[in-house]
């Protein structure tokens, strides 16, 4: 069991009170698993992924626990977390294109970062070169400034750098959303290759694009309004979703071959609830065609068939 998250609650502090951005997800991530974390804006997916590595100034840890390879991860303690960052838990940020110091040569920056974490640069240099070549980069890039590289090249450097210490868990935060269709496939497949070569043990791929994670993930976890809706193997989520939200969401997404003239799709009416003072019970209730009285109580996130978890009273 690589990652175990239990009842994690992280809120955003605002003037008008706490925004319940992440309200108690409990799930596990197996060794070698690539999990797609999907959801719309405000679903809590990026709050969850950020919480696993670094809470920013406005985020407040409220409760719950995170365990990685059997060790408790103190996500509430910024200083203690430094021990885990990079070495155990690492991230490929959404802003990869601007993640490197613009006035430092890339190689110098990497060396300084590694040395500051107590890793002799010499000991990883060869592996670094190997991995840069693996992602199709010349080792010459280490002698360049970030501005001399194209966006795609910068992103690949960041992918290699983030995983150079073979972390146990990698968070890939919307890594493909800024890319063009023709390049996002290469990047997504590179993530799988990183896992296959055991550069990382397991991976959370955060995205708003379910069709993309379907291509590479082993499992997909869908979030809605700060809570988990459903987690299942990728194919199951697409072909046999149980949660009404997942079902409606998937049937609202067009893919090549579906046309307005032949098969009109429909969206989900309404909009997600505000999280400043979230409604009691199931948070999808107001938009759910199946909602009934029992939905006023919060549905537990339970395993309905092996590896298929759903938080819905109607999911039998």
């Amino acid at each position, binding site marked *: 069991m690589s990652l175990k998250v239990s009842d994690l609650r992280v809120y955003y502090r605002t003037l008008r009170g706490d925004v319940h951005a992440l309200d108690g997800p409990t799930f596990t991530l197996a060794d070698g698993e690539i999990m797609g974390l999907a959801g*719309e804006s405000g679903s809590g997916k990026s709050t969850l992924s950020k919480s696993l590595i670094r809470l920013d100034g406005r985020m407040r840890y409220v409760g719950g626990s995170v365990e990685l390879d059997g060790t408790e991860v103190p996500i509430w303690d910024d200083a203690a977390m430094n021990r885990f960052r990079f070495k155990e838990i690492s991230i490929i940020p959404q802003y990869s294109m601007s993640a490197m110091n613009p006035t430092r040569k890339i190689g110098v920056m990497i060396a300084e970062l590694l040395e500051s974490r107590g890793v002799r640069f010499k000991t990883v240099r060869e592996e670094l070169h190997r991995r840069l070549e693996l992602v199709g980069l010349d080792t010459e890039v280490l002698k360049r400034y970030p501005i001399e590289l194209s966006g795609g090249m910068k992103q690949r450097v960041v992918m290699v750098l983030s995983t150079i210490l073979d972390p146990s868990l990698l968070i890939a935060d919307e890594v493909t959303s800024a890319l063009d269709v*023709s390049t996002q496939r290469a990047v997504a497949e590179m993530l799988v290759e990183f896992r296959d070569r055991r550069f990382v043990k397991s991976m959370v791929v955060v995205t708003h694009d379910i069709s993309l994670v379907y291509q590479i993930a082993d499992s997909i976890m869908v979030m809605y309004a700060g809570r988990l809706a459903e987690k299942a193997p990728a194919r199951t989520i697409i072909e046999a979703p149980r949660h009404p939200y997942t079902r409606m969401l998937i049937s609202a997404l*067009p893919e*090549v071959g579906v046309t*307005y003239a032949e098969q009109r*799709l429909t*969206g989900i009416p309404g*909009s997600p609830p505000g999280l400043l003072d979230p409604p009691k019970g199931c948070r999808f209730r107001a938009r759910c065609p199946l909602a009934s009285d029992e939905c006023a109580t919060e549905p537990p996130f339970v395993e309905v068939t092996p590896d298929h978890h759903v938080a819905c009273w109607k999911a039998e």
Partner: protein
Amino acid sequence: MLRFDRVSKVYNVGSFGSDRLTAVREADFEVRRGEVVALIGESGSGKSTLGKMALRIASVSQGTITCDGTDISTLRGNRRLKDYYRRVQGVFQDPFSSYNPVFKADRVFAMVRGEYYRDVPDAQWRAKVHAALETVRLDPQQILGKYPHQLSGGQLQRLLIARALLLDIDYLVADEIISMLDASTRIDVLNLLGDLKARGLGILFITHDLALGNYISDETVIVHKGSIVERGRTEKVFGDPLHPYTKKLLSSVPQFHKKWEEVEAELKAREAADTRIRDYHLPVGQEPPAQLFEADEGHFVQPFPHGARASA
């Protein structure tokens, strides 16, 4: 008919325009009323520039854009431009950036009234606004008097479409209008374009998303690095793609029920089975011309070297 006749856009960059950058090269296509044309391309393809030129926000460097026969670059002066905007309107990608954050969202209606319907009495105007809101399926009660940040992205985009409808337009340029909306609501805004088409509007739907273009359009235009590489009836372009770039896009777009490898294998198999003689192949090394070749009835492709893979 909104017609692009060998339209080019060249930007002068650098100090005093010392360098030139071609954003669009001799684009040639048209948008008819009652039809949705999907203009599909990746970032930097020049697709948005084409939309901006049609809206007279960017000037045309070469070629002409005509609206029902009138060259739109000849529309000088505020009055003639306003007449043009009565017939052609646009909606843009970012719903939040489309609203001035210091004003209420329904100011976009007030702006139209101030410029076009100054003399319309209040009651009549209100009826007109309500009718437009109804078309885009918005509840006036929930919308009017709110600030942009109090509304959702989907509501804001619908509001902008309603604004365009107030002007009784013939053509709408929709530039990536749903790419920033949430997955669960975006399809409804897209369906709205289908409804407008049924009412006789001509729509230029600019997008980077093949699935969306495929879903809503009648005609498809694929642009790559400023040039149109393929265009034709949507079912032709998607069903029988000719240009290597189009094929590459189709094999890269993530699908739901097929993995990338499956799609790629299918395309390859079809290509192998295809024995038609191509008379639009170029000798290797020759620069492809901007003029497209009509490979099939109403299906145009930019000539490319035989055996070429995508050049992206």
